[in-house]
């Protein structure tokens, strides 16, 4: 009977199912019955989880068939997509471009993988450096690149094109601090004892655990913090009294020239330095426009000039756009959201609402009247 008990205790202990008392009982058993120890040693290796095979052709082929089935099932799929908060999306639009999305996503993810590998590698090597030499971890995206990264605390960051995210080795010790230039979507892991703070050029954003988007490109006019879920507090640099508490569905808009205003507060115009606004939604499918870059959409705001639009095109397509004519640069196009197409397709679309010509030489685009 001792043996029966031994098998029960050993199996439970192997898979962390045994209570403290049971572990103690097993140890006593082994003490008193040395003959069991040998078996215990061999069987204890059974407990460790086996690694999965690296590649499984059968599963890969099954996936291809599975995708084909989804495509064939399109009509069926439309009605079944469940709207999620304010983020419900029109399915017919997406289905028509699904094949395109898959290929896009595949190429996009390969870029991410490479970036992640580079990043991990850097991180490892920075840890090997002597203790007093603190090297920050850094993730940089080039134009037309995006990347996803998991921070040491489990928070996830999606980095848009032409952006830069850094944090140093002290991340998570007292505070979780990162520096951002450019645009990123954050899904911050809850941890009230270690506040998460994002530093940008003009604002500091304090977070407890939430999902939100930060757009802080230095050559844009505004720094925008758009809150999807949770709560954040946006404080303007060097103006600790100027704080905005955001609720889900709100965004903070801060003028990027606010830093200059502090130095020489002349208030040249009447536009407010910062304000809180509601998030904008796409009229056709009610999706949140502020985070639509993650679906590869390019978003133009109403009243935005062609020059501002060109900045976005430069980041998204890795091109350089020069205006030969200032009047064209100040004109306002109609489009609000464009699907991901080639840069020349987008320019041709824009030509329908604006009068201009363009010449493309490699990555350089010259816009003329």
């Amino acid at each position: 009977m001792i043996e029966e008990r031994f098998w029960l205790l050993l199996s439970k202990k192997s898979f962390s199912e045994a209570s403290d008392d049971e572990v103690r009982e097993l140890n006593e058993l082994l003490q008193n019955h040395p003959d069991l120890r040998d078996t215990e040693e061999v069987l204890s290796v059974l407990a460790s989880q086996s690694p999965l095979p690296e590649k499984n052709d059968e599963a890969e082929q099954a996936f291809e068939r599975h995708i084909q089935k989804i495509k064939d099932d399109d009509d069926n799929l439309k009605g079944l997509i469940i709207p999620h908060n304010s983020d419900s999306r029109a399915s017919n639009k997406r289905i028509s471009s699904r094949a395109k999305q898959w290929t896009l996503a595949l190429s996009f993810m390969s870029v991410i993988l490479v970036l992640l590998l580079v990043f991990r590698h850097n991180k490892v090597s920075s840890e090997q450096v002597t203790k007093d030499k603190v090297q920050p971890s850094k993730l940089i995206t080039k134009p037309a690149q995006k990347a996803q990264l998991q921070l040491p605390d489990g928070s996830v960051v999606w980095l848009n094109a032409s952006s830069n995210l850094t944090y140093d080795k002290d991340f998570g010790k007292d505070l979780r601090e990162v520096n951002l230039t450019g645009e990123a979507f954050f899904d911050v892991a809850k941890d009230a004892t270690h506040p998460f703070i994002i530093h940008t050029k003009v604002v500091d954003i304090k977070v407890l655990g939430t999902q939100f988007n930060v757009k802080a490109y230095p050559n844009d006019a505004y720094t925008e913090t758009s809150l999807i879920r949770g709560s954040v507090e946006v404080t303007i640099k060097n103006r600790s009294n100027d704080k905005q508490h955001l609720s889900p569905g709100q965004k903070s808009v801060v003028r990027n020239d606010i830093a200059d205003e502090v130095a020489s507060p002349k208030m040249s115009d009447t536009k407010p330095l910062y304000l809180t606004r509601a998030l904008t939604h796409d009229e056709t499918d009610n999706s949140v426009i502020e985070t639509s870059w993650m679906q590869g959409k390019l978003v133009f705001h109403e009243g935005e000039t062609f020059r501002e639009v060109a900045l976005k095109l430069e980041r998204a397509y890795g091109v350089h756009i020069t205006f030969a004519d200032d009047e064209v640069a100040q004109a306002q196009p109609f489009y609000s959201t464009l699907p991901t197409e080639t840069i020349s397709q987008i320019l041709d679309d824009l030509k329908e609402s604006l009068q201009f010509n363009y010449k493309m030489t490699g990555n350089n685009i010259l816009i003329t009247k």
Partner: protein
Amino acid sequence: MRKPENIRLLQQAIACFDDTQAYKQLFLLFYPSLVSFAVSIIRSKEVSEEIVSDVFLKIWEKRQQLDKVENLSFYLFTAVKNKCLNQLQDQKNRASLEINDAVIEFKSLYHDPEQRLISAETIQEIQKAVQDLPPRCRMIFKLVKEEGFRYKEVAELMQLSVKTVENQMSLAFKKIGSAVKLQRQQFAGVFSKN
């Protein structure tokens, strides 16, 4: 590797960004185990593949709620089980969960990160002992060992009591342990004769 934190990350990528590549990874991670689990219940490989594909179709359709699923692994196995039972119900009047003596394969039974010295004969003996386990016992052992489920989860999945899972695991250990012991004694016997 199928670590909970990796799966969490995939769930988020699919839920928030319709990340099709993450969806593919998730599919590849679970497909073989889910199909083999389904086969053990309904025998037909073809129907099993169909069922697993249907479950993943649901995952894509409801992807926006995917990050709310706490334990995706358990969720997937439960969904597959329920679909299998529904399938059986269509065939018979009522269905109960029975584990058939289909081939329940183990990916790699013996993984030893500490590289302890264990002879090839012993490993063979263990493999044989596992294949000789009664089907239900073998499936329980596989769910705990390879899928990393808790006893409680296996009990719920297989519609058994936790006590039964404990006993079945204990039985598996006993059979494997005895096989190892026997093999070692024979080995020692051969050794002493020479």
